[in-house]
């Protein structure tokens, strides 16, 4: 569904992505692991069109998307839940959801009702400015806002960042539910334990390159990854 080939994104002279290639299969949860500074967020920002790649291809359902503007990427069916959530702090929860549906015309109210069913806490806080929400609630709002564009591919950049363990479990429960309903998800995550419970395919990124690709089984067998990301030696 999503195919990335030899993608290079640079900040000035520094190449943060140094030829990244990976695939995300339709209906899967694919997880990207990697240390801080490996280029994971740069990859997400490039896929969402915020950063322009220097070289390489991004294809999504057969269409070239590298170097395309963010609003066209949203229109083509990709939504990113950004790192640190980036809700609109001075707008209400409801207004945040409307902003997420910016490119759509009909059926918005119906989708909001449906999302309120999935995220009852957001319904309670509908009229509250998003900046007054807790971290976990903001994360749920960021997910709900991204879903408002009815994406066929959901990108998530470290949804568990800075959240309490119970809240992280709730977020991953929602990720699993979305997947069960047919969503395709490409997830950046440091929390490999949680990711192992939901993802079908893993990539490891180090210093701007993909250094591992495999299913959860082979991930758990890789000695280096076990030590670095699962914290257990054999």
């Amino acid at each position, binding site marked *: 569904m999503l195919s990335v080939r030899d993608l290079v994104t640079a900040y000035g002279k520094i190449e943060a992505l140094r030829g990244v290639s990976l695939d995300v299969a339709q209906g899967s949860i694919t997880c990207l692991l990697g240390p801080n500074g490996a280029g994971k967020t740069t990859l997400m920002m490039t896929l969402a069109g915020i950063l322009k790649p220097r070289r390489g291809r991004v294809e999504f359902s057969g269409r070239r998307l590298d170097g395309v503007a963010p609003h066209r990427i949203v229109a083509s069916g990709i939504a990113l839940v*950004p790192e640190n959530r980036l809700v609109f702090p001075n707008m209400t929860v409801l207004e945040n959801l409307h902003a*997420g549906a*910016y490119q759509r015309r009909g059926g918005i109210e119906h989708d909001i009702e449906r999302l309120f069913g999935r995220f009852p806490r957001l319904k309670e806080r509908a009229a509250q400015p998003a900046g007054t929400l807790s971290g976990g609630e903001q994360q749920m709002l960021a997910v709900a806002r991204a879903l408002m564009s009815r994406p066929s591919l959901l990108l998530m950049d470290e949804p568990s960042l800075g959240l309490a363990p119970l809240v992280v479990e709730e977020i991953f429960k929602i990720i699993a539910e979305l997947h069960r309903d047919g969503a395709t998800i490409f997830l950046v995550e440091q929390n490999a334990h949680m990711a192992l419970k939901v993802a079908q395919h893993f990539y490891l990124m180090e210093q701007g390159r993909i250094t591992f690709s495999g299913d959860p089984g082979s991930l758990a067998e890789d000695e280096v990854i076990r030590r670095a990301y699962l914290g257990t030696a054999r």
Partner: protein
Amino acid sequence: MEPLVDFLQNTLDGIALGASYALLALGFTLIFGVLRRANLSYGPAIMLGLYVATWAHLHFAHGLAVLFLIALASTVLAGAYVERLCFAPHRGGSAVAAMVASFALWMQLEEIATLALPRHLYEFPALYDGPALSLGPLAVRPEALVMLAAAITVAAALWAILHRTRFGTAVRALIDAPRAAALCGIHAGAVSIQVFALASAIGAIAGFLIVASHAQVTPMLGMWSTLKGMLAMMLGGLGSLPGAVIGGLALGLIEAHSQWYLGPQFRDFVAYLLLFALLALRPPWMSTRSAS
């Protein structure tokens, strides 16, 4: 009794003056809030719009309503021209480059206006040329009431546009978190030119009422509008629309009172001194809301 009457009269005059500043500041703040860029050509676009109206008045057009529509249309066109030339090419780029470009266009717009109408001062049809209304011992100019009513109406309409429309959602999203707005599929470039058009329309309303209240127009209107709009915005806390209204009214009151109690030469001095103090002390409301 006398000092109290003076104080009340100054306050009344200050509110009337402040209403015009509030209008100017609303337009200026709208652009600054969305783009994080100071548009120095904001006032000159208004000036050009009023000069086109003056030119039309000298040649064929009559009636305040017709002149208002001419001023409105030409200010909006000038504003869109400024956006395309100065701000669209620098989106996401250098704020200083955009500001310098808008300074260059200021010069250009002023040249166009003064080439077409080279005299320093032109008469403009007066909004009202009768005597002031008396309110007990106080005098109220009817055009001041019109200005106040316009400021309240524009502020309310702007609030409704920003809070009740799809366009308003996009504008506020861009003010709140520009990157998140892009991720929601909001196209900053398309919204930006609409914001310029809206801000220019508000500026045109302000400029028209100011010019028609004084029954004259000079090329100084351009610089004056940019300065007053910017000053009122800064006093109101940089980039908040309610702050723009408060800052405009505060500036009007400060000017009216300092002119009366300290003398006309202190009128601008006190306002700038206060701004300097605010910038030096940076009270909590005086901060740009975080862009990310």
